């Protein structure tokens, strides 16, 4: 298959250089599909030149700030061909076969990017670099040497920004997943190349696709004089690039810091040699010349200050491009973002719904049908920010967070999965995590929460989380890997029925209680005058109406049953229930005898688990405990449902009698995560401060006692 190419000319700020480049492109044997010029000039000369002399070339203005200010991002987003080729203004193509040579290596599907030689106009301009072409060294440095001709196609770690190309699909995915703006075009190119390499793509250097480049023409690029500001910026940007590409804990970051520190000896040696009274040739140095040599020493602070400045720069925009997951599962390009519910699009809802189906642990209260209906009806959801981890078009994790105040003993604000809305309406706050990639997703989730881009506090509470569930395990594991302290704030045991255990209510009842259950059941049958039936209505809208009427008639109705609620709340409930009913994701049961209903219940189905949502009983038969009988029969009915493996009645343990109806229980925990500096410090100090306060209280009470 023949690949098409778009050529993007970047760094156009000098009409003369731009004309040279565009003129040379007109000689190509195979013309590109399109040619774009990224206009970086402040005036309109480049645009005018292009319009007058090269009418088929499109001009794109380069913004000064933001993601779109990256020429790579601009070029990739505006081009349409299979391969996007970047040429720097001032590069002059010498051979008409240049584009064909550049595209030839793409025949190998492993190849994601190809670069060509960049030959300076004069021999003096050739780089005096360390050996190796386009290599990334273990000490964090890069070699260039793109003017050299190895005589054959070779693999490289990065490509020359003046003459490089990528498969557009791959580059587009990488730039969408990462912050493309690294300060300079060279750094942007290196970051993109490193990201490509980490995804397993190959980058190759094609020496026969060469361009000539005049580094001194028009601007000060290639200037030999290197001042302290330049070396400072170089160190700063380099360290920031490494951190943003590999993460703080990658050994290469430390290696680079150590290398920089070791290299400072060169300044000392140079200064000492220039302060000698005589040159090697025997010529005498004047005192002024010798004293001027001391100026060289100012390079040391310039370089060393560049390191912390680079760390600050990286920290301010830490967004690792991929990176290793805690379980060492390859390197994936994941994107994480936080959005308010109102910004979720219809397309997003579909991806969210798809995630619900493959979630590691089901949670109907984080289902878009539940939450988005609430977002459309209730104002209490406006504080919810949805933290999303995406892998291309697929959602890997979703966690809702609301910023709430401070809790006792904690001076920091925190964000909780149980905000104003979910705290009242959700019985479970387990984040949704893709079952196929739990560790990668959990890691990306926490990494995003640790970055300022999340716009969330540095202290996070994940509450109502099953402690022994795989989500808690994945979160704890990711916390360990990312050195995010995870502390338990509270825990309680909640009723649960695991149908795989083989024990179903009332098998676990004591003999006395079992007798009581049988007695009440017989009593109910006597009272109703007919044998009782337990009917499953599956997902029936009319059955739901009957349930709501039954609820409204009882004590639950007087305390805020659905039918007695205000308009928006009722609308929300009916809206989301309508969707669950349409999808067949709920079960409505009825305990009745003849025409008399004694009990009804509603459970939502998510994954392979049923979640109790509402139940109500006929208060005329309160004496015979229809609620207890109904809940026992409800478990038996769900146990025979082939789609249901477990039942979470969502019953708070304070309802001891109700809790005792279920054979199993599971521990629910509330975890605190110190995702950022202040949160980490606060969490680490918390146990000591609590112990201190406790000791102080004990001493006070002892003193009072005495």
């Amino acid at each position: 298959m023949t690949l098409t190419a778009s050529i993007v000319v970047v760094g156009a700020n000098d009409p003369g250089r731009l004309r040279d480049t565009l003129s040379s492109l007109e000689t190509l044997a195979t013309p590109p599909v399109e040619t774009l010029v990224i206009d970086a000039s402040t005036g309109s000369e480049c645009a005018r030149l292009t319009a007058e002399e090269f009418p088929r070339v499109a001009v794109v203005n380069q913004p000064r700030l933001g993601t779109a200010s990256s020429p790579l991002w601009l070029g990739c987003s505006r081009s349409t061909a299979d391969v996007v080729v970047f040429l720097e203004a001032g590069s002059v193509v010498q051979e008409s076969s240049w584009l064909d040579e550049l595209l030839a290596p793409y025949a190998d599907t492993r190849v994601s990017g190809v670069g060509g030689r960049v030959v300076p106009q004069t021999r003096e301009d050739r780089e005096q670099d360390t050996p190796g072409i386009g290599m990334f060294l273990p000490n964090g440095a890069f070699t260039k040497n793109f003017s050299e001709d190895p005589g054959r196609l070779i693999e490289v770690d990065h490509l020359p920004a003046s003459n490089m190309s990528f498969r557009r699909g791959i580059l587009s995915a990488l730039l969408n997943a990462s912050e493309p703006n690294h300060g300079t075009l060279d750094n942007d190119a290196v970051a993109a190349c490193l990201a490509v390499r980490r995804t397993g793509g190959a980058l190759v250097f094609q020496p026969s696709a060469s361009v000539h480049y005049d580094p001194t023409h028009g601007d000060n690029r290639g200037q030999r004089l290197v001042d302290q500001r330049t070396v400072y910026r170089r160190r700063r940007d380099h360290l920031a690039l490494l951190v943003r590409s590999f993460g703080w804990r990658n050994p290469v970051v430390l290696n680079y810091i150590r290398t920089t520190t070791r290299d400072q000896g060169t300044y000392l040696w140079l200064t000492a040699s220039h302060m000698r009274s005589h040159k090697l040739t025997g010529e005498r140095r004047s005192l002024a010349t010798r004293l001027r040599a001391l100026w060289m020493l100012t390079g040391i602070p310039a370089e060393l200050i560049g390191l912390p400045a680079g760390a600050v720069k990286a920290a301010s925009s830490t967004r690792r491009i991929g990176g290793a997951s805690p379980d060492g599962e390859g390197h994936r390009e994941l994107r994480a973002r936080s959005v308010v519910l109102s910004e979720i699009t219809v397309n997003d809802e579909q991806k969210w719904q798809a995630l619900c189906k493959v979630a590691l642990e089901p949670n109907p209260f984080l289902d878009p049908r539940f939450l988005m209906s609430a977002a459309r009806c209730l104002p209490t959801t406006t504080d919810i920010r949805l933290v999303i981890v995406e892998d291309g078009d697929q959602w890997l994790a979703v966690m809702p967070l609301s910023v709430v105040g401070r809790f006792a003993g904690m001076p920091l604000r925190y964000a909780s999965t149980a905000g104003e809305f979910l705290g009242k309406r959700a019985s479970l706050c387990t984040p949704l995590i893709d079952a196929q990639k739990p560790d990668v997703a959990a890691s990306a989730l926490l990494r995003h929460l640790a970055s300022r881009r999340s716009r969330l506090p540095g202290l996070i509470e994940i509450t109502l989380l099953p402690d022994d569930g795989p989500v808690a395990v994945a979160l704890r594991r990711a916390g360990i890997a990312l050195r995010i302290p995870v502390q338990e704030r509270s825990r309680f045991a909640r009723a649960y029925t695991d149908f795989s255990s083989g024990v179903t209510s009332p098998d676990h009842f004591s003999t006395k209680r079992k007798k009581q259950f049988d007695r009440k059941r017989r009593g109910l049958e006597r009272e109703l005058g007919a044998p009782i039936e337990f009917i499953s209505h599956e997902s029936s809208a009319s059955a739901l109406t009957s349930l709501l009427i039954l609820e409204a008639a009882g004590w639950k109705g007087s305390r805020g049953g659905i039918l007695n609620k205000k308009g928006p709340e009722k609308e929300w409930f009916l809206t989301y229930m309508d969707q669950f009913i349409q999808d067949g994701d709920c079960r409505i049961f009825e305990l009745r005898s003849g025409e008399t209903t004694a009990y009804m219940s509603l459970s939502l189905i998510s994954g392979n688990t049923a979640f109790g949502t509402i139940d109500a009983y006929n208060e005329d038969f309160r004496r015979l405990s229809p609620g207890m009988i109904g809940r026992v029969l409800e478990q038996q009915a769900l146990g025979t449902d082939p789609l249901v493996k477990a039942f979470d009645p969502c019953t708070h343990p304070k309802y001891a009698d109700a809790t005792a109806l279920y054979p199993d229980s599971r521990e629910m925990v509330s975890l605190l995560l110190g995702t950022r500096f202040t949160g980490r410090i606060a969490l680490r100090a918390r146990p000591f401060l609590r112990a201190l306060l406790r000791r102080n209280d004990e001493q006070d009470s002892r003193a009072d006692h005495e």
Partner: protein
Amino acid sequence: MRITAYVLVADPNYLRESLLSYYDHVDRIVLSYDENATSWTGTPIPVAECLAVIDDLDVDGKCERMPGHFARLEHHPLENETYQRQLALDEAGKDADWVLQLDTDEVMLDPPQFFRSLERAEATGASAMDYPSRWLYTQVSAGRYLEASTRFWGLAASYPGALAVRKATQLRLCRQTDAALYRVDMRPWNTDPAHSHETVVHEVIPAESAVLHYSWVRDHDTIRKKFGWSGHAEDYTQPVNYLRWAHRQRHPIRTILTNPLRRRDWYRLVSVDEPTGGTR
């Protein structure tokens, strides 16, 4: 990638271990030796003994003998060495992409890693590969050796020359060449005290994967002979070299403790698995 090797047949010590460490990974091994069993300095060398060892281990018939006249006494021994190596390299490179040039007392500790590095060197367009050797000075007891180190007992690599070169490479002196080097080291920075700290490192490998060079690990009689037939015979035959060697072998602790006081010749005590061969 087709890989061959050449060896200069002169010293039977560690010959078996050296050849066996890469025998399975190469297609052909060229055996270069002086037809008169004479060294570059004119002293006799045990060629027949070496060839007997090689015949014993060459089960696949990969070894090819290439005798020649290399004891050209009118030339400097190092020139003779370079001459012999170049002829052997040209012969071995006839049907290969890369040629290994290990001495017979150099043993690959981790051959898979060596050949992985070689593949990387090939991919990056290099023409020669510098691979770190750990230079053993003497054996002080069973499995205990004095190894060349930095002044403060740090890990030190030694690079006698490229251990693998592309075919048709021109050697400058002995195994050294001006071809584009791919340099492997045991740290992200150069660990060879003989090279500048700015020397670039392209790949880092663990110390356990380096090549072990049993350079001066011989018994007293053999080391004296080796000094005589070596390309560096002019320096090595100075009595002080042997006396120092013998003294340091007797007093290894004193030798390593006095490292900081010496301007060169720094050692550390290491344990190395005893090779199956050797002379002790």
